[in-house]
């Protein structure tokens, strides 16, 4: 971990904190209002705002988790610094890909 990775990890954490709160609040709202999947998709599809919201969430989560996994792999496995960086980058890309797929499915009309 160096200062650049540290800043990215703390920055993405700071970004995710309000996003998580909003996400949880929306989940409670949807549940209490009895919204069906079709109701929810009707509101999110074509919405630039929800697209940006979850795209930011996915990007922040992929970066944050990637940096954290890099440290764990480097410290707790025999991969070494370079191996850990490569494996963590692959994991971050996987998270970003899966997240992007979910966001596209929810917001694309």
């Amino acid at each position, binding site marked *: 971990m*160096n*200062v650049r990775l540290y800043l990215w990890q703390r920055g993405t954490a700071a970004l995710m904190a309000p996003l998580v709160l909003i996400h949880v609040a929306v989940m409670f709202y949807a549940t209490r209002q009895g919204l069906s999947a079709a109701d929810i998709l009707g509101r999110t599809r074509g919405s630039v705002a929800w697209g940006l919201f979850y795209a930011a969430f996915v990007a922040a989560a992929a970066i944050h988790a990637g940096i954290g996994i890099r440290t764990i792999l480097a410290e*707790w496995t025999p991969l070494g*610094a370079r191996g850990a960086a490569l494996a963590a980058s692959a994991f971050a890309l996987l998270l970003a890909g899966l997240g992007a797929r979910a966001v596209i499915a929810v917001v694309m009309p």
Partner: protein
Amino acid sequence: MSEAAAGDLSVSIWRGGADGAFARYQVPARASQTVLDVVTHVQRHIDPTLSYRFACRVGMCGSCAMTVNGRPRWTCRTHVSKVAEGGRLEIAPLANLPVIKDLAADMSPFFEKWQAAGGAFAPTLSRADPVEPIRPSEPDRVVADAGIECINCGVCYAGCDTVRWNAAYVGPAALNRAWTLMNDRRDGAQRERLAAVAADGGCHACHSHQSCQDFCPQSLSPTGAISGLKRMAMKAYLRGELKP
């Protein structure tokens, strides 16, 4: 395994190198006895081949740190009555360092990292210049003073989880030293030192477990020093003064 006789301590001491083993000794219990007294008794009266390190015996030199019942301690200031469990002591060399023999750990990695983290003071004046007056109440000096009583005993290094997991991590003592120098306006190597502690293996590798300040026999706060370095390095990086 025999029980200690009344008035005796049952002491297990690490013998040999990294592939050594514990050997058990019976040592008479005495009033105000320190762990270093126990080790000295074994060497003077039972086995003169026992190797260990000490110098001042009064908590100033930082030579006699060992692992006592699983925890790193300065043995000259550790009373047996406070740490012996049922009259038993287990004494091993400091963890996270190579073992030379018996209780003597090789401190080379500790001091090499101390140097790598910019632990040497870089003077900006010569002996021909007048002494620079610095008031003890200056804010930077107050911060530096909070960390300068480190005796480099290696207790924090031996007790640090991150040191154990990350061979590149320079450790709490080296970073505490760097922090005191970063707050010393007489020093002329601020930029180089900040770059050294902001690189891989530097202050950002710390997980803030706080074992260092829990174990520090001088009650210093290396964790606080490391947090200060993190903030200082982050600000310098954001200003473009630091390239990791």
